């Protein structure tokens, strides 16, 4: 915790800020990219959202009070940016965000930055039929292997509720995967 406090101090000090922020970029660009990509599905969209996320992190660093871990705070920003992006894209297309995600998943095979097998496509289709919150919880637990305690800090939901959400998501996905 003290290391993190020192790191945040370095991020806020103009003399050490550039070096500290480069370290932050290097440490978090991949996990944040994958987190965002799991939500928005498309690489170009994930790239846009990731850049916006880091810029927001930089701009709001002085507001970070240390009440949660730095990475939880960054993940929260990334999640909000990704969900906002999806909702805005869906609105522009005149459809719901669920419908948009289903549409993208249906076209995954044609996506040059997706090299998944049929079962991977099927799993993405199974996830796409879940409610938005369940999708998020499932992806964070299954693909990103985020601990429930950390997920609770990121999403602002109790560990109990997250476990229940994941359990329901797993049941529905298994039903889908085993039915066709």
């Amino acid at each position, binding site marked *: 915790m003290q290391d993190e406090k020192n790191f945040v101090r370095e991020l806020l000090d103009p003399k050490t800020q550039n070096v500290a922020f480069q370290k932050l970029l290097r440490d978090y660009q*991949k996990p944040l990219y994958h987190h965002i990509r799991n939500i928005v599905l498309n*690489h170009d969209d994930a790239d846009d959202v990731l*850049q916006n996320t*880091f810029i927001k992190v930089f701009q709001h660093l002085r507001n970070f009070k240390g009440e949660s871990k730095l990475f939880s705070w960054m993940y929260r920003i990334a999640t909000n940016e990704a969900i906002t992006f999806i909702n805005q894209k869906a609105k522009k297309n005149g459809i719901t965000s669920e419908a948009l995600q289903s549409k993208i998943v249906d076209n995954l095979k044609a996506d040059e930055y997706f090299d998944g097998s049929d*079962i991977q496509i099927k799993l993405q289709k199974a996830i796409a039929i879940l409610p938005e919150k369940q999708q998020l919880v499932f992806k964070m637990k299954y693909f990103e292997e985020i601990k429930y305690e950390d997920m609770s800090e990121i999403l602002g939901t109790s560990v109990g509720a997250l476990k229940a959400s994941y359990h329901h998501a797993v049941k529905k996905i298994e039903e889908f995967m085993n039915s066709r």
Partner: protein
Amino acid sequence: MKSFKINDNDSKIPSGFKTPEGYFEALESKILTQLPSHEPKVIAFYKRKSTWYYAAAAAVVVMLSIPIYQNFFKSSGEVDAIVLEDYITTHADISAEDLATILEEEDLEKIKLELNLGDEAIEDILLNNNDLEQYILD
């Protein structure tokens, strides 16, 4: 056929997403060039809060000093009575007779009231004043 189980670690399914070649290597510089610079924000003089605070303080100082100024430079037509009396008695080359001529009836009445001499005191003054005959003749 074995049914699909999510929690079966042997059959963990990756997401299938991939990134372009060299994406993460180029990302750092892409983001760093977009960050706001550290140039100090230039705020117009009249928009600065401090300008208004100083202006308010200056207005208060000016308002408070107006009565002080007026009091300090007040040219009073009136001269302090004690100062005048002292001047007349110590400096002015003016006799009691001249004063009696200059002063108005009401001023003399005022002096009489202020002096508030009893009859005995008046008699005493008259008896001791050698110019009494002269005053009667005048």
